[in-house]
């Protein structure tokens, strides 16, 4: 035991965990800045400018503000569940980063069922929302929670099914192997990414992923105009910050998963000296994730919200049949070739 | 390596808890939850035997149990909703119209 704790393996593992965790937390903080800035630009506003150059210290100011705000627990709330809910929301959201490969060796652990692990972990995230909404003992949070749980169950189906086609081509569930299977090119210039083999699945995945993370145009769970703030109406201070963090973490997770499944993960052109080659995969990976994040924010600032019945009909009558048809055709082609 | 017996005994303990719940609780949702406990106890013994005997069949059976559990939950909860709508209670002793 003690030998293991002092061994190089263990220290390397610890360094990876600390590095990934720290990096992700920092990235999440600056995601809020990026979103505010970008939204502001779309709406012809300057966005945060006061704290630091370009408002770059804004996330730190926000964090401090969250820490020092009064932590209100409503009188009629169910105290135990009210406190539990943000924790339940945040832990699964952060846990999924443990299997995501940020680079060839920059991965905490490569489970043989890594992809399913992420699905399992993220499917637990819905409890945070549901419990938060229920424990607040107030009508808007409850309605938000009900909507959110129904929406997340519905879209989880198409999300999971859209991935099956990719899995049939790659023949593995490990995220590391999924990435390495997409190395190389066709005809020397088209990268061997699954998006070219599974364009329909990619579209289904991205749409369902947006719905899974409760973002506009699918943010029925917290639609400001009708439900105040949905399931986190009664939350304040650090608990609210935890919900926010969980939401952003989920956003990054689904983007990372989309990158790994469809855009070749950390693969990309390699050049330069050795130290650059060490860093490049992670740069590509982060770059690809950023594309998705940009897309998310632009969607939020430009699209109106769906109506609830439209949302459900879209999931069950469009995405699900499409995903099933995609599986059928893919399996036919895989079986014949 | 943990002996097979420990898993089997754990399974038995959980199963008995499930049985007790099924007979002692009166809320129909609690009854469904007790059934889930029993199914899980059985799943555990299946997997324990499977890994002990080096055969995958036990794990495949857990799969089927999962399917049955999902079907049971879907139909059971639909019934619960229908029952609550008609009787305003979930106490199984109160839904006694078919009794004479």
């Amino acid at each position, binding site marked *: 035991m003690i030998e293991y704790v002092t061994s190089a393996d263990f220290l390397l593992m610890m360094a990876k965990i600390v590095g990934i965790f720290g990096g992700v937390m920092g990235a999440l903080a600056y995601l809020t800045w990026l979103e505010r800035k970008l939204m502001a630009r779309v709406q012809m506003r300057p966005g945060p400018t006061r704290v630091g150059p370009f408002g770059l210290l804004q996330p730190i100011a926000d964090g401090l503000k969250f820490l020092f705000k009064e932590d209100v627990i409503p009188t009629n709330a169910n105290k135990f569940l009210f406190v539990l809910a943000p924790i339940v929301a945040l832990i699964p959201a952060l846990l999924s980063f443990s299997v995501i490969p940020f680079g060839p060796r920059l991965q905490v652990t490569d489970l043989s069922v890594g992809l399913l692990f992420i699905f399992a972990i993220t499917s637990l995230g819905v409890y945070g929302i549901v419990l938060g909404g229920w424990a607040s003992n107030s009508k808007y949070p409850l309605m938000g929670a009900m909507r959110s749980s129904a929406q997340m169950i519905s879209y989880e189906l198409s999300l999971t099914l859209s991935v099956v086609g990719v899995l049939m081509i790659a023949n593995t569930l490990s995220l590391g192997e999924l990435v390495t299977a997409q190395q190389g090119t066709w005809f020397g210039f088209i990268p061997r990414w699954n998006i070219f083999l599974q364009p329909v699945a990619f579209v289904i995945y991205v749409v369902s992923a947006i719905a899974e993370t409760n973002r506009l145009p699918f943010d029925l769970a917290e639609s400001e105009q009708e439900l105040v703030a949905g399931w986190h109406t009664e939350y304040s201070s650090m608990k609210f910050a935890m919900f926010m963090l969980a939401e952003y973490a989920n956003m990054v997770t689904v983007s990372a998963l989309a990158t790994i499944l469809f855009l070749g993960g950390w693969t990309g052109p390699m050049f330069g000296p050795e130290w650059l080659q060490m860093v490049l995969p992670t740069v590509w990976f982060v770059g690809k994730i950023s594309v998705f994040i940009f897309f998310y924010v632009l969607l939020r600032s430009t699209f109106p919200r769906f109506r609830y019945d439209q949302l459900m009909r879209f999931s069950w009558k469009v995405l699900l049949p499409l995903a099933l048809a995609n599986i059928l055709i893919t399996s036919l082609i895989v079986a014949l070739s | 390596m943990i002996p097979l017996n420990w898993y089997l005994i754990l399974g038995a303990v959980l199963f008995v808890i499930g049985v007790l719940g099924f007979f002692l609780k009166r809320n129909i949702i609690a009854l469904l939850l007790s059934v889930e*406990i029993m199914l899980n106890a059985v799943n555990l013994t299946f997997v324990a035997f499977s890994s002990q005997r080096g055969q995958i069949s036990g794990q495949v059976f857990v799969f089927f149990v*999962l*399917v049955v559990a*999902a079907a049971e939950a879907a139909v059971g909860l639909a019934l619960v909703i229908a029952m609550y709508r008609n009787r305003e209670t979930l106490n199984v002793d109160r839904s006694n119209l078919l009794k004479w």
Partner: protein
Amino acid sequence: MIEILFFFFAALAVGAAINVLVQKHVLYSALSLIVMLTAMSALFILLQADFLAVIQVIVYAGAIMVLFVFVIMLLNLPEDEDGADRLRWLKFLGIPLGLFLLFLAVVTLWNVERPEVVEAQISGTPELIGRSLFTDYLLPFEATSLLILIALMGAVVFAKKDL
């Protein structure tokens, strides 16, 4: 080391299962059951059934229990009234009988001849399970799809407004 993990998760599972029975409000029971299901998933990992462990969380904790919690919230149930009627005395008979059943089971299982450990340990990978599912168990597998279809239709019919 592995024994410590086993006892930890076993204790967690049993404790959570008992808590399911003790809790008055059915929402707490459901949450407690989720804890038990995740503990079971950890036990599956100890038994090297990785795939099942993950599936357990996805299907049970992620889908079935969400349905339960959803229905409990939808109906906005009050707490159970405490044994108001004729079955009040049942627990004084039931718990001893249950413990007796447990005693019988444990004694039987404890005295079972311990089979020698098979050397070829298998790990429940998706490949192995899938292969078995689509060759040896193809007919039951297809039958389950029929079962799910029937359950689906049943759920839709039962949940209709005018039953």
